[in-house]
């Protein structure tokens, strides 16, 4: 009996086990090996840590990496605040027409990152975009959204917040709905203002959910690629080139596979640190909810 169960357990996991070994474990080992070689797709020559040494002297890697950090650092609060704001509004007892609004805010989830890029590129076109047109209508000067690196970066952030709201909204709303009503009623008796209630009841009650949202956002922003590729294609120049695009370009366009693998390993170590934090808090979150 026990042995047949063992056989079945193995059958049940077999597909995922094979896929895991072939498309995850093996590439991961291969990636470590490639990162120690000079490899252009044909012959891999072992060169030790040279790729890593070169990486840290490579200003374009350095820039892509620090730009990704900056993007994550600004993008996370941006995404967090916008999605929390929307979620609070959608669960407030003071708002009407929530179902219609929910569908609207959910809509970006349907839109692929490529189309999100197209969308914002179209809105923020320099000479024909809607945003510059409005700015000119109220008497301002058109803003060089795509030719100035800082502005392009800003547009990427808008697109990020727009595209990220729906997903976080689903997570937040579940948490917000489960806050006991009695807490708010008690605060009402004490005459607390809406803002005080938000600060002293809502925020502490969703603390673990906030951690989850923040860490998932860190993860997703660190890996940003498709949306930015269709929005700015990394430009102007390389002003919005993030690390995954850098890896893609060195690995697939320039065929410097070993070098790209080394860059991947650096990214991996960074993501690993965030993952470990995430798992630590995710566990804590499950206990107190």
């Amino acid at each position: 009996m026990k042995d047949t169960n063992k056989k079945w357990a193995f059958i049940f996991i077999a597909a995922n086990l094979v896929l895991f070994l072939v498309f995850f474990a093996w590439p991961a080992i291969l990636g470590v090996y490639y990162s120690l070689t000079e490899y252009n797709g044909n012959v891999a020559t072992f060169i030790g840590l040279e790729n890593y040494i070169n990486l840290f002297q490579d200003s374009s890697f350095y820039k892509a990496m620090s730009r990704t950090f900056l993007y994550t650092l600004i993008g996370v609060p941006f995404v967090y605040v916008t999605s929390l704001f929307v979620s609070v509004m959608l669960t407030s007892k003071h708002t009407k027409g929530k179902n219609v609004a929910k569908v609207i805010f959910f809509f970006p989830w349907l839109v692929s990152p490529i189309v999100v890029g197209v969308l914002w590129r179209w809105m923020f076109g320099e000479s024909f975009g809607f945003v510059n047109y409005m700015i000119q209508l109220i008497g301002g000067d058109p803003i060089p959204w795509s030719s100035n690196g800082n502005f392009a970066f800003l547009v990427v952030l808008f697109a990020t917040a727009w595209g990220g709201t729906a997903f976080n909204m689903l997570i937040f709303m579940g948490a917000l709905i489960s806050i006991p009503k009695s807490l708010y009623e008690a605060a009402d008796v004490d005459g607390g203002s809406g803002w005080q209630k938000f600060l002293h009841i809502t925020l502490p009650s969703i603390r673990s959910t906030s951690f989850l949202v923040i860490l998932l956002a860190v993860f997703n922003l660190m890996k940003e690629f498709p949306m930015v590729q269709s929005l700015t294609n990394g430009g102007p120049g390389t002003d919005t080139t993030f690390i995954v695009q850098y890896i893609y370009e060195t690995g697939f366009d320039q065929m410097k596979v070993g070098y790209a693998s080394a860059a991947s390993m650096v990214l991996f170590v960074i993501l690993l640190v965030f993952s470990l934090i995430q798992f630590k808090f995710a566990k804590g979150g499950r206990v107190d909810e």
Partner: protein
Amino acid sequence: MNSKLTDRFSTVMLTTALFIVAFMYLFPILWLLLSSLKPGSELFSYPLTILPETPTVDGYAYSWSTMQFIKYFINTLIVAVITTLLTVIASATCGFALAKYNYKWLNVFLICMLATTMLPTEVIMTPTFSVILELGLYDSLSGLIIPSINTATGIFMFRQYFMTVPNDLLESARIDGAHEGKIFFQLMLPIAKPVVITLAIFSFQWRWNDYIWPLIVLSDPNKYTVQIALRSLIGADNIDWVLLLSSSIISLVPMIIIFIVFQRYIMDTGATSGLKG
């Protein structure tokens, strides 16, 4: 009385604020849609008008005849449907095993699956490409399908769900003489219907909107998925906006249909919300 009045006041204010923000969220897509109904000459003519002066679907006709959408849709649909089907089955069986059997090696495997969420595909894309080449999966739709079947999110969703199913239910079925395969397919999978539907919707959305895999694996335009086909328009030196705008809208249609059909399930995914796959 006074507090009732403030209540009504804040309801009006907040509802107004909510819909202003909602409109701002909707506007970019609305603007894209309205623009796609403008003739090319009107797209760049100042002053801009919100509504097309001479609305036309010429852009769509042009895009439909230029882009081989039927081909891209069929390719993407094949990938999305087959991957989703296989993902659901593999994740359900694997999640069941991880939830209901107690072997050390299963725990080891669980940790391995956790590791896949730590090392996302983007990080190992160059070596995975070598594996794809070695296996002869390059430039084929199966090269998109096979690696995408394995998702930790799906496995965890099923594992969490099956853990809540009482063991007594399994035991009594075993006493009745059912073997494990039968128990799984006739008893467990039907109970897990909500998870099946949720993961299926998620998986379909992931695969429909997938970009990195198709970008790496495909080179033959006949095998392009919708997203890669769109990308080929953006990569052009001079963007043909008429073509790009209407093509973008066309690419959204299948997801919108899925959304309308499964809206109830999609909006209630609070319990399973979580990771990307």
